């Protein structure tokens, strides 16, 4: 087994064993605390530009399968784990997790003291890093980590968005005889979804509520979107910093008031900017499946799936027509917003889960209701 190393911009070195593709890769190192769902994490386009550390020490146990992909291929720049399973054990598995990543050229460094790494990231904030295999000059590696682009100010959406407009028709399909979800409602809305790095489970859930979906590239103008005569517009999740996405927020601003809009994650941040607000970078972000979010309307707490490094500043929206609807109970950050007068709402977290709890599926139904109301 070949050795591998992870070098961080602060000079820290983590030694481990090389798995996956034996290539060098750089990115911002972030940690995710979800226990299940590594494959969904690998394939979430929001991780573009990031090396992911998983806190669950045993990764790869259940292999990989086609149904659990959140996009056509993995987007993480690299994977850091304590242990990667040499076998895949699950009736749905068609591949080993390590092979799955290798075939897309993604390196894995295993046998790393991931807890020390996470504690470091918690203290220092997200750091840039490089994974490399074989004998390395460690100083040079640290240099390369330092010269990797920072997340702030980078437009990563253009790297992950679709080149072409496409339609999507697949709803949530059961994977086990016991998964008895409701069948998708027959299409009654035309929803245009902006792809800033969209996850498939969002598309599936939009289909579930009765949407005929047209997915458009991130750079599509508001006029072109409105020309498609949508009943609603969806703003997707996506990687990186929302601030450089001026074009996107400008287009979204034009949509407000014309059509119901629902945004998730980066979509939520773009709405924040469109509302005239500001965003800021979190120290090490929220990446996990256990974040408690208070729904201020119902008073109930949802356990949510989260994946973001930036956040909407509530103070910047104090004088706007925007109401904060959801709040993170761990750090009181903004988790959801609603326009007071227009059919526009959004959440910072991931109601489609994948991976994560299903507590917030109701938001898709809320979107359907909103579209229904404005149709009347």
């Amino acid at each position, binding site marked *: 087994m070949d050795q591998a190393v992870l070098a961080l911009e602060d000079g820290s070195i983590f030694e481990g064993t090389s798995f996956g593709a034996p290539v060098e890769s750089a990115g911002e190192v972030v940690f995710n605390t979800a226990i299940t769902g590594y494959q969904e994490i690998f394939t979430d386009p929001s991780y573009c530009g990031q090396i992911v550390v998983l806190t*669950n*020490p045993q990764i790869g*146990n259940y292999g990989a399968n086609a149904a659990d992909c959140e996009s056509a291929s993995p987007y993480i720049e690299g994977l850091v784990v304590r242990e990667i399973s040499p076998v895949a054990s699950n009736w749905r598995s068609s591949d080993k997790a390590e092979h799955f990543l290798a075939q897309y050229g993604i390196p894995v460094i295993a046998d790393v003291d991931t*807890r020390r790494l996470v504690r470091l990231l918690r203290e220092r904030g997200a750091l840039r890093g490089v994974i490399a295999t074989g004998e390395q000059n460690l100083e040079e590696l640290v240099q390369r980590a330092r010269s990797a682009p920072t997340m702030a100010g980078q437009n990563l959406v253009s790297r992950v968005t679709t080149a072409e407009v496409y339609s999507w028709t697949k709803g949530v399909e059961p994977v086990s005889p016991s998964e008895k979800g409701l069948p998708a409602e027959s299409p009654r809305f035309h929803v245009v979804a902006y792809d800033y790095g969209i996850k498939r489970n969002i598309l599936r859930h939009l289909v579930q509520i009765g949407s005929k979906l047209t997915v458009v590239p991130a750079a599509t103008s508001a006029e072109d979107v409105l020309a498609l005569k949508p009943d609603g517009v969806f703003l997707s999740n996506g990687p990186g910093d929302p601030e450089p996405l001026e074009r996107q927020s400008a287009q979204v601003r034009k949509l407000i008031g014309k059509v119901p809009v629902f945004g998730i994650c980066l979509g939520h941040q773009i709405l924040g900017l469109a509302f005239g607000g500001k965003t800021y970078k979190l120290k090490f972000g929220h990446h996990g499946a256990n974040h408690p979010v208070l729904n201020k309307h119902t008073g109930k*707490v949802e356990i949510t799936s989260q994946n973001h490094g930036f956040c909407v500043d509530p103070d910047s929206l104090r004088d706007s027509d925007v109401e904060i609807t959801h709040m993170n*109970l761990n750090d009181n950050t903004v988790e959801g917003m609603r326009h007071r007068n227009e059919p526009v709402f959004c959440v910072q977290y991931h109601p489609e889960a994948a991976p994560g709890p299903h507590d917030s599926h109701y938001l898709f139904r809320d979107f359907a209701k909103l579209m229904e109301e404005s149709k009347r």
Partner: protein
Amino acid sequence: MPKRTDLEKILIIGSGPIIIGQACEFDYSGAQACKALRAEGYRVVLINSNPATIMTDPELADQTYIEPLSVAYAAEVIRKERPDAVLSTVGGQTALNLAVELAESGVLDEYGVELIGAKIDAIKKAEDRLLFKDAMRKIGLDMTQSQLVNNVEAGLAFAERIGYPVILRPSFTMGGTGGGIAYNREDLVEILERGIDLSPVHEVLVEESVLGWKEYELEVMRDLAGNGIIVCSIENFDPMGVHTGDSITVAPAQTLTDREYQMMRDAALRCLNEIGVDTGGSNVQFAIDPANGRMVIVEMNPRVSRSSALASKATGFPIAKIAAKLAVGYRLDEIRNDITRATPACFEPTIDYVVVKIPRWQFEKFPGAEPVLGTQMKSVGEVMAIGRTFKQALGKGLRSLETGKSSSRAALNPVLINKRLITPNPERLDYMRFAFEQGYSIEDVQEMTHIDPWFLRQISEVVAEEQSLLGRTLDSISKKEFRKLKRDGLGDRQIAEVMGAEPMQVRAARKKLGIEAVFNRVDTCAAEFESFTPYLYSSYESEDESDPTDRRKVMILGSGPNRIGQGIEFDYCCCHASFALQDFGYESIMVNCNPETVSTDYDTSDRLYFEPLTQEEVLNIYDREKPDGVIVQFGGQTPLNLAMPLKHLGVPIIGTDPSNIDLAEDRKLFGKLLADLKIPSPPHGTATSIEEACETALRLGFPVLVRPSYVLGGRAMVIAYNEDTVRRYMQEATSFSVKRPVLIDRFLEDATEVDVDALCDGENVLIAGIMEHIEEAGVHSGDSSCVLPQISLKPDVIRTIEDYTARLALALNVIGLMNVQYAIKNDTVYVLEVNPRASRTVPFVGKATGVPLPKLAVGLMLGKKLDEFKHLTGGIVNGRLPVSHYFVKSPVFPFAKFPGVDPALGPEMRSTGEVMGVGETFGEAFAKAQLAAGTPIPDSGALFISVNDRDKPAAVAVAAKFREFGFELFATRGTAAALKHANLPCKTVFKVNEGRPNAVDLLKAGKLNLVIYTTTGSHSFPDEQTIRRNAVTYRTPCITTMSGAKAAVEAVASRRRDPIRIWSLQELHASETVQATNA
């Protein structure tokens, strides 16, 4: 919603004695609930019959009733205390059942008491199979298909429809008697016919088999607002077919994709919602077909459970404490997470390590019971281990078990591999490892065990690593290799054994290479937030998070897994040691590996190390913490076994010197000490070979008591009446341990046994209690009921006992606690055994006297003197503590779980737990203790009596008393003749082999209310065993000693004479304090 203000006083129901399936996890949950509710300002009233619990300490509740958990006594508590509410969800099934009975009998309505936690409807919906099935169907959850049938045709038709194999469960038979698995039509007809016959209602449940499916458990919490969270997911290593309590379990679940896990999470939350669990913790069990992912819900418990204790320890999320707060109206988001301080309890813990729980069985104590595992729980305890990976956790878990086996090379039979893999049994994991050594493939083992191949791969890799060391030398192991070995959980001793080295050499070799343990924190959040609680486990990672303080500190070594003979009593003492250290201004450091206990609650000590109690792991902690002292005398035999080696390595053991503890165990040295002190003991000797043993026995004269040295709980102890028995015993004993000699004592027949607990500071000796055993010497002290104060000892005998005890304590230079066992025959006092350490009876004596013995002991170990504790002892420094009432401690036995085992009492301890009864007379206290122990002595009805010739005169006197009480007498021929001779009318009953109807027929028909059936001494005949066995099966109290029978007479007298009376500990001891002050 903030907490409710309409409640003022809350009754908490405890779980009673430790039994298989309901152990000290409910002391943990109950103690947490008491503390949480009192902290919220509620007045807490507690009822629990188990004195060996932290929750029944008078400081934990406003009023503590150590009374039987029966409707009558609970109703009396309610009548007297008038609580506003009853919390029934923290005391296991016992509390839940009692709550239901209190509701159904109208007691709760009568006194306007509200049930909080789970409402009666929710409890019923969860517990009643049919209601549960309907509820689950309603919310679209799959269950196994099943049907109740009362004839073979219906069963056949159903089985044809769902397909074979099917599980058959006759209704209302004890321990699943008559059930089985039918793989085909022939099996079905055979088992069904038998089952229908055996079932009292002639009904059998035919159920779809999910044997071999993957088994999971989710720990769920819910608040009144409907917020639900999953605290922990648990995956069973052993597939369906083995009771969860007997399964190795792993947290978090290892082989579920997110998709499947979330499906399970959704189902669990829906289940709680539908069952109507308002608030609190519940666990929901699922089975998954490994072939296609079909998921069925197996069961749910609307209360905290053994798994909640495990989940709490595994994640750092205190389920019971939070359940108690939710029960009084708080919402999850209003409660803080103690560990992170900054975040709320309304979240789902995430962990960055793997937790493995391994059960501990003791089939060896129940000859006649087949050592196989099935749907009825058989384990008596468990260990939990935390590691960064599954391999590491499993390795640590196996070390924690203290089975004496460190690798699979321990006498396994290659011929048995297939058999041991196919049928689940306590040795299955050993055989799995052995099978891999012998070249079995993962596929082979999976086929036989149905264990997930992911787990099997992990085990096979460790076996291969171990094998790769064979024939190598220590210095050939590279740093990288050593690091991997340790990271994969191999113990120094395990490595040493494979390589033919000494464990300390392995330690030195790896330390030289810089491979040392570090400590990581359990923090509920995988390091996402800072942790303020030093709850630690060792690993071989690269950063140490233990962050030791520079305070004065003392480390307490706990007692490890519960075993018969080493149970909750020792955990009780360890917890008190910790509290006392804190009181005395020391930092307390707890080391233990038992997830069920209060000692492994992160709140109990300043610092908690969840670690195996091995020399390796204890030294690791010692090296890091450098405590000023280490306490070994509270945790039973486990820490004592480590005491001498640790002392030799320079670890400062405080209290009685380990060499004096050893001296008391050393027959020769101790014999000399007794001779010097002129204190008599039964003639004795030792032997290491069969010949030597026979010679010694002949020299001493039969009967003799034969036992190994260094054991607790009378493990492998027999009374031999002839040379044959000695020979047979030695053949078995030498296969266990040859290092330590076998002890042989002359056995004093019909002697009265006495247990004494005392404290010594090196100058003064305080006698805490002289407990007289109800059963005669020869019955293990842990299996005998005992009474405080003594009832039949003459004053000069008591003086002698006090004198001997004091002289022994001073001679052994005891600092702390000491326990002495005496036998009194013809007014001569003989010393049987001296244990210079905390004993099993310490909690009982503490509760009876109101004096916190472990606290005093810790004070003494820290150099304080007894006269500094006068405020706690009522001014007594040198003498004996008084008691205001009669206190009886009675044992509780697991015989119902082990079909085929003779319940006759003997020198091998088999009780799993204990209860206490309080009364103004011995009879009242004994009657209450027996009721609490689940063997209530009837106040009328039919007595069946059969005794050996020696006991006949006594039996006549006992029978005459029962006759006076209006009992109908039944007796076997010989006993009947004796009774008739004494003009006592009685009916003669056949023994089993004499014809019918015989005694067993009468038991089955429910015609007998009490059985007195003594043994014949040397060995018991199959016939008597059958009768005693059936008494257990048909739940008829069965007394197997004459002294027990005499005590029963007094109990009946009390039951016929005394009203139902209760005393809280606070009342009992308030009056004593007054007396002491007056005196």
